[in-house]
C-alpha cells in the first residue's frame, strides 16, 4: 500500500494532481476552520445566550428595585410578564424579597418550590443548568441591591434547548457554507488547473512535435497587438517587424531606440521599462511558451543552416570522392600509427582490394612483408623527419610492369604537429615509354646522320666503280669475266640504290614544289602496278574523292610513297587478295586522307611501333632494304603530313565490297594525311 500510493500519485495527470491537492487542502482547511469557527461560534452563541439571560435578569433586578421598594406588586408582575412574553425562550421569572418570600412569578397554577432550593447564592457562577421536564434550563440569579442592602432576588429561567437549536442551525449553516466554499474552491481549482495544464499541454505537444523533428511550432498565444502596431514605428527593416511568432525582446538587433542594439537576455534590462513589454508580457507560463517558441525558431534556423552546411559538405565530399575515385593517381592517407584512413579507388583497383579492406589496416596487412617493411620504414621516416619523400618505383603485377612516381608527404594538424602521411603515386609508364622512344629516335637520328655521311662518302667511289665496271665490260670479251663484271655492275647498282635511299632518308633531297592532283598521282601508280598485281591475284579497288582539290608538293616523291605502300601491301598479301585505295576530304576541307588497306598478313602489335624505323623489315632477306617506309615517313613529314598504321584496319577504311575470306590475313591499313594549307598536321 505504501508503495502503491506514491506510484498511483505519480501516475496521475498533473491537472488531477493540482485539483486533488487543492481539493484536499480545501477540504482539510475548510472543514478544520469550519469546525473551529463553528465550535467557537457555538460557544460564543452559548456565552451570548448566557450573557443575554444574565443581562435580562440584571435588568429586571434593576427595574424591579423601585416597585419592590414601593411594594408595587402590579408593576412587578407587569415587568416580569412583559419580559416573559417578549422572549419565547424565557421559561420563568420570579422575584423574592430579602426574606425569600416569593413576591411575584410567571408560573400559573402554583409555584415549583424546587426552584427555591437551588441556585440561592447569586455569588456563585451564573447561570446554573437545570434539568427539568421542559428540557435543560439555565437558571439565572440576580440580587436586587441598593448600596449594601439586599432588597430581594430575581430568578430567570432561560431555555437551553432554544440555544441548542440556534447552535444547531448555526452549525448547519457553517457546514453548508464550508461545503459551498470548498465546492466553489474545487471548481476554481479545476478551472485553475485546466488553465495551467492546458498551456503546459500545449508546451508538451510542442516538445513532442520537436522530438518528432517538426520545429515549426507555436506554443505562446498571439498578443492582441504586435509591437509595431503598439508603437506605430513603421520600421520595416526591423527584425521584429512582421514577426508574429516571437516577441521583440527575444530578438537581437531590433531597431527600437530603447533596445540599445543588444541581444537577449542583455536587452531585457531596457525592455522591462518598454510599453510594448508591459503590454504584451504574460505570466511565467506565457513567458516560458514564448521563450520556447523563440528557442524552437532559433534551433530551426540553426538546424537549417547546419543542414545547408551539411549539404554543402556532402556535395564537397562527393566532389572530393569523385575526384579521388576518378583520378588515376594512387592516393592514400595513413595516421601516425601508419594505419590507412583513406585509400583512393585507383589504389584499390590496382591492388584489387576494396576500400574496406584497406582502411584500418597497415601495410603489413596488405602488402608482402618485404614491400610492407619498406613502406613502413619510409612512412616512419616521413613522420619522424617531416621531410617529403619522392621516388620512382616499378611494380610488376600480372606480367605487367608499371612505373610509378611516388610522393609521401607529412600531414599536419591544426597544432602544426604531424598527424599522418599522404601518399600519391602517379603511373609514369607512358612517360617512361616515351622517354625510351625519345632515346630511340635520337639514336635513329644519329644513325641516319651517320648513314648519310657514310653514303655520301661511298657514293662517289660507287660511281667510279660502276663507271669503270661499265667501261671494262665494253672491253672484256671473255664471257665468264663479262658475266662477273655484270654481277659487279648489278651489285654496284644495288649499293647505289641503297646509298640513294640512305641519302633520301638521312637528308632532305631536293624537292620540287608544284601543284599536285593527288587523285591523278594515285591513279597513275595504280595503273602502273595493276597488271603485276593482277598476275599475283591481287585486286586493286580505287575509290577517289572527286572533290579533292590539288595541293602543293612534290608529285614524284608522293608517287614514290604510293608505290611503296602499294608494294608493301602486295608483299603482305603475297597471292590472292585485295587492296583498297581511298581518298577523302575532311569536312573542314583542311586535309586529305589517303588510306591503302590490304588483306595481307597484318602486323603484330609489337611491330607496329617499329614499322617506320629504318632498316626494320619483316620481309625475307634480300627482298627489302627496310628503308621504304622510313623514306615514305620522311616524304610525308616533308609535306607537313602524317602517316600512321592500323592492323587490322577498321571497317571505315574498307569498301563494302571488300572481300574477306579465311585464307586472307587480318590486313593492314596505312593512313596518310596531307594538309591542304601550309600548316602542318600535328
Amino acid at each position, binding site marked *: 500500500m505504501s508503495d502503491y500510493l506514491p506510484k498511483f500519485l505519480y501516475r496521475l495527470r498533473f491537472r488531477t494532481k493540482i485539483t486533488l491537492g487543492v481539493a484536499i487542502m480545501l477540504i482539510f482547511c475548510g472543514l478544520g476552520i469550519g469546525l473551529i469557527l463553528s465550535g467557537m461560534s457555538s460557544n460564543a452563541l452559548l456565552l451570548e445566550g448566557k450573557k443575554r439571560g444574565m443581562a435580562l435578569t440584571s435588568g429586571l433586578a434593576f427595574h424591579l*428595585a423601585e416597585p419592590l421598594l414601593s411594594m408595587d406588586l402590579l408593576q412587578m408582575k407587569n415587568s416580569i410578564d412583559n419580559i416573559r412574553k417578549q422572549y419565547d425562550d424565557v421559561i420563568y421569572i420570579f422575584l423574592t424579597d430579602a426574606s425569600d418570600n416569593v413576591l411575584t412569578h410567571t408560573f400559573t397554577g402554583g409555584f415549583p*418550590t*424546587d426552584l427555591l432550593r437551588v441556585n440561592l447564592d447569586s455569588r456563585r457562577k451564573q447561570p*446554573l443548568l437545570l434539568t427539568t*421536564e421542559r428540557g435543560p434550563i439555565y*437558571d439565572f440569579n440576580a440580587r436586587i441591591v441598593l448600596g449594601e442592602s439586599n432588597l430581594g432576588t430575581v430568578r430567570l429561567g432561560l431555555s437551553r434547548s432554544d440555544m441548542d437549536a440556534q447552535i444547531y442551525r448555526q452549525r448547519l449553516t457553517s457546514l453548508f457554507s464550508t461545503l459551498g466554499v470548498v465546492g466553489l474552491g474545487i471548481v476554481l481549482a479545476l478551472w485553475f488547473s485546466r488553465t495551467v495544464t492546458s498551456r503546459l499541454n500545449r508546451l508538451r505537444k510542442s516538445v513532442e512535435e520537436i522530438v518528432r523533428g517538426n520545429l515549426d511550432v507555436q506554443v505562446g498565444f498571439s498578443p492582441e497587438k504586435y509591437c509595431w502596431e503598439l508603437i506605430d514605428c513603421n520600421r520595416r527593416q526591423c527584425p521584429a517587424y512582421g514577426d508574429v511568432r516571437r516577441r521583440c525582446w527575444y530578438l537581437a538587433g531590433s531597431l527600437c531606440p530603447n533596445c540599445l542594439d543588444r541581444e537577449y537576455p542583455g536587452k531585457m534590462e531596457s525592455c522591462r521599462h518598454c510599453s510594448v513589454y508591459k503590454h504584451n508580457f504574460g505570466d511565467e507560463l506565457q513567458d516560458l511558451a514564448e521563450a520556447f517558441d523563440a528557442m524552437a525558431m532559433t534551433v530551426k534556423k540553426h538546424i537549417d543552416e547546419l543542414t545547408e552546411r551539411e549539404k554543402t559538405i556532402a556535395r564537397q565530399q562527393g566532389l572530393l570522392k569523385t575526384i579521388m575515385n576518378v583520378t588515376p593517381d594512387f592516393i592514400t592517407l595513413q595516421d601516425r600509427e601508419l594505419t590507412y584512413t583513406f585509400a583512393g579507388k585507383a589504389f584499390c583497383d590496382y591492388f584489387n582490394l576494396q576500400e574496406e579492406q584497406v582502411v584500418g589496416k597497415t601495410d603489413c596487412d596488405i602488402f608482402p612483408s618485404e614491400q610492407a617493411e619498406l613502406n613502413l620504414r619510409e612512412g616512419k621516416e616521413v613522420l619522424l623527419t617531416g621531410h617529403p619523400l619522392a621516388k620512382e618505383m616499378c611494380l610488376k603485377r600480372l606480367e605487367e610492369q608499371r612505373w610509378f612516381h611516388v610522393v609521401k608527404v607529412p600531414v599536419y594538424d591544426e597544432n602544426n604537429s604531424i598527424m599522418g602521411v599522404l601518399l600519391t603515386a602517379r603511373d609514369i609508364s607512358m612517360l617512361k615509354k616515351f622517354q625510351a622512344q625519345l632515346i630511340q629516335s635520337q639514336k635513329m637520328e644519329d644513325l641516319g646522320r651517320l648513314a648519310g655521311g657514310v653514303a655520301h662518302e661511298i657514293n662517289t667511289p660507287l660511281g667510279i666503280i660502276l663507271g669503270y665496271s661499265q667501261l671494262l665490260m665494253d672491253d672484256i670479251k671473255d664471257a665468264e669475266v663479262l658475266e662477273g663484271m655484270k654481277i659487279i655492275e648489278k651489285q654496284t647498282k644495288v649499293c647505289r640504290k641503297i646509298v640513294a635511299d640512305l641519302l633520301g632518308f638521312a637528308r632532305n633531297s631536293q624537292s620540287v614544289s608544284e601543284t599536285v592532283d593527288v587523285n591523278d598521282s594515285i591513279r597513275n601508280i595504280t595503273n602502273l602496278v595493276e597488271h603485276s598485281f593482277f598476275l599475283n591475284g591481287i585486286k586493286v579497288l580505287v575509290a577517289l574523292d572527286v572533290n579533292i582539290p590539288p595541293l602543293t608538293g612534290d608529285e614524284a616523291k608522293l608517287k614514290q610513297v604510293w608505290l611503296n605502300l602499294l608494294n608493301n601491301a602486295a608483299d603482305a598479301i603475297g597471292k590472292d587478295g585485295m587492296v583498297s585505295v581511298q581518298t577523302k576530304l575532311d569536312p573542314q576541307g583542311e586535309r586529305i586522307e589517303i588510306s591503302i588497306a590490304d588483306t595481307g598478313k597484318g602486323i603484330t602489335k609489337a611491330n607496329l611501333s617499329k614499322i617506320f624505323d629504318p632498316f626494320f623489315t619483316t620481309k625475307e632477306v634480300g627482298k627489302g632494304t627496310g628503308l621504304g617506309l622510313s623514306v615514305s615517313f620522311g616524304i610525308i613529314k616533308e609535306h607537313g603530313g602524317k602517316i600512321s598504321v592500323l592492323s587490322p584496319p577498321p571497317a571505315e577504311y574498307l569498301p563494302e565490297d571488300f572481300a574477306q575470306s579465311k585464307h586472307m590475313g587480318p590486313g593492314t591499313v596505312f593512313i596518310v594525311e596531307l594538309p591542304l594549307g601550309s600548316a602542318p598536321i600535328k
Partner: protein
Amino acid sequence: MILAVFFLSSCRENEETVKVSLEKREDIAFKQQLPAITYAYLPQYAHTESFQRHHLLVEYLAEETGLAIRQVFPETFDDHVKMFSQGKIDISFSNPFIYVQLANRFGAKAMARIIEEDGRAEFRGQIIARRDNQGIKSIKDCRGKSWVAVDPSSAGGYLFALGHFVDHGLKLDDFKEVVFVGGRQENVILGVYAGLYDIGSIREGSLNVVKDKIDISQIKVINNTRWYPGWVYAYSPRLPQDVADKISVALLRLDYKNNPRHRAILDAAKCIGLVPSNDRDFDPVRDLSKKVGLDLE
C-alpha cells in the same frame, strides 16, 4: 487542529446540572409585614435614591428609639400628601411648601430642620443673567425680559424668585416670557449661558454644580431672594407625642462632626445635621404662598 476542534466542541458539555421539577407546584402566600412606624421622604427622587439616602437614617432611628420603623415610598408629591392624610406616613421629611400644606391641612407638626451642606438650615434663590448682558443690572431691569426657571413648583428655583419679583413690583405679566425647562437647575444656567434667555432663577449653590462644565464667571447674579426655611421633619398628629419626642431626640442627637456613624448617616441623607424646628419657622413660606398665589391651605 482536530484535538482543538474536539476540545472546543466538547467544553460546554462539562457543565454542572441540577435536576429540578417544574411540575411540582405549590400555592404560596406572601407573609404579612409587621406593624411599624412609617417614614417617608418626599419623592423628589426615585425610590432607590430615596432608599439609599435614608435607609441608614431609618435604621438609626429604629435602633435609637427601639421602635419598628419602616421607610415607605410614595409615588408622587400628591401621593405623599395623600398617604400622610391617610395615616400611612407617620414621619414626613418634606420641603417647606409640602410641610405647610400638611400642617395646614392635616396638623403635621415640625420637629427638626436639616442643616444643608453649606451649613445653613435655610436656603434662597438667585436671579442670574449673562455677565455681558449690559441691559440687566438690577432687579428692575428684568421687566420685559425672558425668564427661565426649572419648574413652577420649584421653591428655590422659581417660587422664591417670583416672590422676590413681586416684592419689587414685578408680576408674571411683566416678563416677556416665562419658560420652564424642566429637569435640573443646571438646564436654567446653561440656557442663560447660551444666551437663549435673558434671566434665570436658580436655587443658591447650583452655580457650583456647573463650574466644571462652563465658565461661571460669565454668569452674574442680579439679586438674591430672602432666606426661607429648608427641608423639615414633621410627624403625624396620630403619632403619640412620646414616640414623636423619642424620634425628635434621636434626630437631633446626630453629630456630624464627632460621630463617624452619624456622619455616614448624614452624608447619605445629603445634610450635615439637624436643628430643632417648629411651625412658626414656616411663616415666611406661608407669606410667600400668598404673594405668589399658591394655595397651601
